[in-house]
């Protein structure tokens, strides 16, 4: 883009009508399906509504109800835990995989593709594959038996103590390849001269990693963080397909609780209020992401 186009192209300030339409049509589509519904979502959060009769205004009643809602508390804690565990582990494992697979050498394409293949799977298919592994007579219990840990055998998804963690594993299996790709691109962007100079100065591999690799990956880290937070708050498919939030809400996330409250219990006002909570959690990330984007769009 010619920065402030008018400086270079004096004639360009007059925008042809067709160009205006080019922007307005997509913008209207988005306004119709996103902005307008979002505003409605906020106003619905202040109502009690069963979807049939007219919504009744209850002010902040839905939000004060959450304070005493134990399922909400479980779902909120699980969402934060999901963010930390799923987010932290996928970032760490993705970076690890990228560091391992960064050099171009024989067979590297195969290894990368293997780690990356799950990214294209739908989370529903992923969930079902793992559900088979978690069955009482499934692979995981078979392996435990075979290595002499038969005592650890478990109905992984049916136990309240393990269901949540059992759901995270497939989500991670799918996410690591994605994060790896982001880091691989970041690692390739680092100027090799930096490493040359460090070696001349006698820096060890660990020192090179700490003082060159990590600082140089700062902008990628910010991207990975945004991706992870947004993905975590949106996470729905894998939990819905594996446990629907059960048993006894032990794997409930805010997103699954919102969906079941709205569309199964038909408490649309309360569901909207839960969605607002998810929005508020996401908001900080969205804003910092947009601020970055704003700077770069300059």
């Amino acid at each position, binding site marked *: 883009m010619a920065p402030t186009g008018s400086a270079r*192209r004096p004639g360009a300030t007059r925008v*042809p009508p*067709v160009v205006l339409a*080019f922007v307005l049509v*997509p*913008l209207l*589509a*988005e306004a*119709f*399906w*996103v*902005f307008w519904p*979002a505003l409605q979502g906020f106003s*619905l959060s202040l109502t009690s509504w069963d979807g049939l009769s007219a919504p009744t205004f209850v002010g902040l009643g839905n939000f004060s109800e959450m304070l005493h809602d134990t399922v909400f508390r479980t779902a909120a804690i699980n969402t934060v835990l999901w963010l930390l565990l799923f987010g932290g582990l996928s970032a760490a494992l993705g970076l690890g995989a990228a560091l*391992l*697979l*960064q050099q*171009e050498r024989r067979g590297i394409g195969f290894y990368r593709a*293997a*780690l990356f*293949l*799950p990214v*294209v*799977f*739908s989370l*529903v298919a992923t969930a*079902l*594959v793992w559900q*088979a*592994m978690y*069955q009482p*007579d499934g*692979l995981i219990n078979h392996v435990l038996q075979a290595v002499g840990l038969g005592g650890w055998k478990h109905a992984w998804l049916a136990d309240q103590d393990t269901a949540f963690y059992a759901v995270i594993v497939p989500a991670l*299996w799918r996410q690591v390849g*994605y994060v790896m790709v*982001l880091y691989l*691109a970041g690692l*390739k962007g*680092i100027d*090799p001269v930096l*490493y*040359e100079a460090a*070696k001349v100065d006698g820096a060890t591999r660990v020192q090179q990693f700490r003082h060159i690799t990590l600082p140089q990956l700062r*902008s*990628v880290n910010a991207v990975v963080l945004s991706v992870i937070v947004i993905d975590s708050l*949106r996470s729905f*498919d894998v939990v*819905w*397909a594996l446990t629907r939030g059960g048993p006894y809400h032990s794997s409930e996330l*805010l997103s699954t609780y919102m*969906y079941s409250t709205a*569309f199964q219990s038909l408490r649309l006002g309360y*569901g909207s209020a839960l*969605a*607002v909570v998810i929005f508020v959690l996401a908001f900080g990330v969205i804003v910092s*992401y*947009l601020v970055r984007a*704003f700077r*770069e*769009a300059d």
Partner: protein
Amino acid sequence: MTATRTTAHIETTEAAAPHRPAPRGRALRTTGFHLTAGLLSALWLLPIVLVLLTSTRTFDDIAAHGVGSRPHSFTLDGFRQAWVDGGQQRALINSMLVTVPTVLLSLGLASMAAFALSRYALPFRRVLLLLMLGGNLLPPQILLIPVSKLSELLGIYDRLYALIGVQVGFGVGFYVFVLHGFMRAIPAEIQQAAVIDGANPWQIYRRVVLPLARPALAALSALSFTWIFNDLLWAITVLRTEDRMPVTASLIGLQGQYVSMWNVIAAGSVIAAAPTVAVFLRFQRHFVAGLNLGAVK
């Protein structure tokens, strides 16, 4: 950073390996690398191999030996049951009926908006751009209830159009943002030359900018295909009838219908994953580039 630069990174590899250790140490290190990477890949591929094996076993075999045992049988009956009785054929058609128009429509609209915003001095263009991106970053949960009511109101609830509409509306902001980054890197001189030749904006868009943005469009198509094809949340929000559900939602139905018939469920998963895996294998390069395109920002 612009999109062009990232794609360039992918081409320029092989630069960072200056220090050569002694031959013996290198051989040892290479073996160590292949052992680690090979083990990791095997671990990652294991669930996929397992689902392929499970999908070709008979129900009796699984019932007798457990879903985690080695296969004692081979049959494609699971596929037949999932495809015909389980409705996966219909669901796959639905998925394609939604995915293909959505990809074309949202990329078409997004490329127009990106063209206008990146090549013309529109007022508030930066605000518009970020507003559109912001819409895509909203958590979809806030939209679910209003969108399902809106589609009821319009009389398109439980129709594939509703799904296409919401997918286009929700996705377009992100594609505009990425394509904008790509298109603004196109030199102004090319456009000026076209103007001097008497080209109108539509011709510039169609004949000059769109062809130049092809790498980004290819990458985004590959990426958005998998996103839209794999979606579950929007589908179960605006659709109700079993026969209209896309393949992801139908897979959940299959899971309920064929409880513990793991051969059928596994076959269904294979069917649901096949199109995106095919796109990935065919367009792997574009696909990976696409993930980076989005992430550069």
